[in-house]
């Protein structure tokens, strides 16, 4: 069956869709920021260049803030702007606006900031290896069932895994437009963002009582986000609003790529230590101890939430009787890391899936057998004591093994590698991802959605969840229309605007379709039964006087879902999505280079609403994960770490393997989370394929030629 066409495609292909930089309003000033360019220390002096008329510029600093100089986040520790203390490269010192962009850029490039420097931690290992860098709440999760091991065959093994920063690289850089209406004392922000209500909180925080009303609207097009437009927009909107308020003119800031690369949020670097007690011959794991650490950057912001999801995914798709997990954040002097597709789960799953293959390798048993032996099944308990009621991991695994011809290739490649210099490898990995906010998150959020049936027969959907490329607005409309059965063009999602859209929560955590979509569908069903129509178009035509009519619904979680935030016991996620993946690689030892040839993905994401869009999510997520696994490498000690895309190798068309995707158990009544799971598992599958090809255990990402070269040297010694 053909998938319904995306509603936004035509406008995006012809340039009609407006992204933030396409917005102009009369009298608009060009805005920009000046940020710290040292890692740690103090700002001592700001020198503006001579030869400019300062009267023409609007300049704001922390001292202009009428409200609070704190970005609202789960942990309120990051200032919008700094005037003295420097904790990381990229902290905003000044906002500047001028009518002419070229003059503004010139002025900024000639402005000199004098600093006094202090020692800084910018190396991820230096940050994560030293417990003195720990900050924030330490999280614990402990779960003990009766020990299952046979004491005579115990083997204890410890491994440490590291991952590095990953840059979001959404193609549209961050940008905001602020318009201040003096009469109404209203601040309107238009921007490229995932969470309009977060931005509203931020602008209210910085402006305090200076403005009466704050309205946030998303731009028509949002050029990719992946989590990167979850929290940085709060800061940027705050500074842009402050400029517009001081200038009393509209101000637009669009970041240059270089600045976007250097100062916005990245994926958290991680260190994960796994100690397991296993059967010394078959590798049955009876006890596991995991120490999961994230480099949060200079401020905690939303990192505790990432940490939480990380520890809750740390044992992956395995059933282990005794589990002990500790999660901690570490502070470095790099820009705060933030949300990025997967949100702590990819780092956890990388460690666990790599660990499994290391064990298989050490015991000379098949990685598939080892997985089957330890696999999480229906009726088993997660480390949170949550009983798994629906689990198609086994089916995912069986199917991916069959599709890829894993078993035969595994032995064929072993043979092939004996006589060939260029090696072949095949690797497995499992994935799981909890849909929606963690623990009691959805209970607290209480998402609300609205559907308006218009007089003219149109159906308008009001949700705060944005269309950032993932196809949400087409898919949500389709879910509603599965009840109304109108021509697709009659049902639309209205661009989120906080003055008319109910708060259905942020566009994060694979929750848009899973929480908001299923809620909308429930509302549509209620509307249908309340109005009692057989044909909605007819019904509206015949009862013109009673339209427009508006309906709302609030999300009510399953009352049985209880979660204890201190002990981390209970239902962390009502539904999990499941996946299994096989990756086939070729490794050229002369170039130290891995080429991914094929990647098979079998996923259970429940009901698939729009297959074309769903496939696109998997393809895109897989390629992002391959970038994280192989080439995307930011880290250089100190700054500036990147000057542009030239320094950061994003996957291009020539790098992509043949990617096969199959969805199973799609007859489920529920559409589960989909957006993030494809980011969770491909990287360890690649790494495991490399282990099969070469016998070299590399417990770090990315697998760049430099890292492989170094590891090869070590393994020869």
């Amino acid at each position, binding site marked *: 069956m053909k998938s319904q066409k995306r509603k936004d495609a035509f406008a995006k292909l012809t340039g009609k869709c407006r992204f933030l930089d396409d917005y102009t309003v009369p009298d608009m000033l060009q805005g920009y920021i000046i940020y710290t360019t040292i890692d740690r220390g103090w700002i001592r002096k700001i020198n503006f260049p001579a030869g400019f008329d300062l009267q023409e510029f609007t300049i704001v600093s922390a001292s202009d803030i009428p409200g609070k100089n704190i970005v609202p986040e789960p942990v309120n520790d990051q200032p919008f702007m700094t005037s003295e203390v420097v904790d990381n490269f990229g902290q905003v010192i000044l906002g500047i606006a001028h009518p002419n962009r070229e003059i503004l850029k010139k002025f900024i490039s000639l402005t000199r900031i004098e600093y006094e420097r202090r020692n800084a931690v910018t190396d991820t290992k230096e940050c994560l290896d030293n417990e003195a860098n720990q900050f924030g709440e330490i999280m614990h999760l402990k779960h003990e069932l009766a020990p299952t091991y046979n004491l005579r065959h115990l083997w204890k093994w410890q491994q440490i895994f590291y991952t590095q920063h990953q840059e979001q690289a959404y*193609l549209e850089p961050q940008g905001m437009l602020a318009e201040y209406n003096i009469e109404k004392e209203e601040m309107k922000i238009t921007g490229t963002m995932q969470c309009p209500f977060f931005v509203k909180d931020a602008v209210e925080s910085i402006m305090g009582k200076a403005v009466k009303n704050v309205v946030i609207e998303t731009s028509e*097009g949002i050029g990719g986000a992946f989590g990167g437009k979850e929290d940085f927009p709060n800061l940027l909107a705050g500074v842009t609003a402050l400029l517009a308020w001081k200038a009393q003119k509209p101000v637009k800031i669009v970041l240059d790529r270089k600045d976007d690369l250097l100062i916005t949020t990245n994926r958290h670097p991680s260190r994960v230590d796994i100690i397991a007690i296993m059967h010394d011959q078959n590798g049955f794991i009876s006890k596991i101890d995991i120490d999961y650490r994230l480099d949060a950057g200079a401020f905690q912001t939303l990192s505790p939430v990432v940490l939480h999801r990380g520890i809750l995914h740390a044992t992956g798709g395995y059933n282990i009787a005794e589990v002990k997990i500790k999660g901690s954040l570490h502070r470095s002097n790099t820009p705060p890391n933030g949300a990025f597709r997967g949100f702590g789960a990819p780092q956890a799953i990388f460690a666990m899936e790599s660990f499994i293959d290391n064990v298989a390798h050490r015991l000379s048993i098949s990685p598939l057998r080892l997985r089957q032996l330890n696999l999480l099944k229906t009726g088993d308990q997660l480390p949170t004591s949550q009983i798994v009621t629906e689990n198609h991991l086994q089916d995912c695994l069986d199917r991916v093994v069959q599709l890829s011809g894993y078993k035969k290739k595994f032995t064929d490649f072993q043979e092939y590698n004996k006589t060939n210099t260029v090696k072949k490898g095949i690797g497995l990995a499992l994935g799981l991802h909890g849909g929606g906010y963690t623990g009691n998150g959805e209970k607290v959020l209480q998402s609300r959605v609205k559907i308006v049936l218009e007089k003219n027969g149109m159906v308008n959907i009001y949700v705060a969840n944005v269309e950032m490329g993932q196809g949400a607005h087409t898919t949500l409309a389709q879910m509603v229309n599965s009840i109304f059965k109108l021509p697709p063009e009659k049902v639309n999602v209205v661009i989120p605007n906080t003055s008319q859209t109910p708060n259905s929560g942020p566009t994060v955590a694979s929750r848009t379709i899973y929480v908001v979509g299923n809620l909308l569908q429930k509302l549509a069903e209620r509307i249908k039964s309340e109005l009692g129509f057989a044909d909605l178009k007819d019904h509206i035509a015949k009862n013109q006087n009673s339209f427009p009519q508006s309906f709302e619904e609030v999300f009510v979680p399953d009352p049985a879902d209880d979660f204890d935030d201190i002990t981390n016991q209970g239902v962390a996620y009502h539904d999990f999505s499941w996946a299994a993946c096989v990756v086939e690689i070729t490794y050229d030892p002369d170039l130290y280079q891995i080429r991914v040839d094929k990647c098979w993905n079998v996923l259970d994401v429940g009901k698939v609403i729009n297959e074309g869009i769903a496939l696109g999510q998997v393809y895109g997520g897989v390629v992002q994960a391959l970038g994280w696994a192989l080439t995307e490498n930011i880290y250089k000690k100190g700054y500036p770490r990147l000057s542009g895309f030239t320094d950061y190798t994003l996957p291009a068309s020539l790098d992509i393997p043949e990617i096969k995707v199959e969805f199973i158990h799609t007859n489920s009544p529920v559409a589960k989370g989909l957006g993030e799971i494809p980011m969770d598992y491909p990287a360890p599958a690649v790494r495991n394929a490399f282990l099969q090809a070469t016998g070299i255990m590399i417990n770090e990402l990315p697998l760049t030629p430099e890292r492989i070269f170094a590891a090869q040297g070590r393994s020869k010694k």
Partner: protein
Amino acid sequence: MTISFLLNNEPVTITTEPMRRLLDVLREDLKVRSVKESCGEGECGACSVILAGKPVTSCLVNIAQVEGIEVLTAEGISQTPAGKILIDCFEETNAVQCGFCFTGFLVSCWHYLTTTPVADAEAIKQAISGNICRCTGYVKIIEAVQLACQRINKEQSHEIS
């Protein structure tokens, strides 16, 4: 400096600094919105246009270089027969995601389709290798171009027979 060129088949004349980027002149002076700035250094292809028949990244072209030359952007391409076929195929395959890169892809794919419409995945990958897309993983873009090649070849064989 006064510069005249053909933009999407319409003659335009502007007075401006010769060293300004074609990208800025198109976006700011001529309100051509399909041309996007993403990297500003020739790496991503979001700002692609057809210049004298070839795809180029307009962030690396100075306006002075354009004097007397024909410039085609996604707006113009979408009016051509091959452009229409491509747009249909991108829509039908649900290839578009955030779309920020897509006007750039339209430019390179249109060039491919109008010069070597071979439905070969490797050749298509080569043709779009200068365009970065962070959302789609390229799979559906390639699929859409293959479909467009088949369509255009079918149309042409109809015309001949």
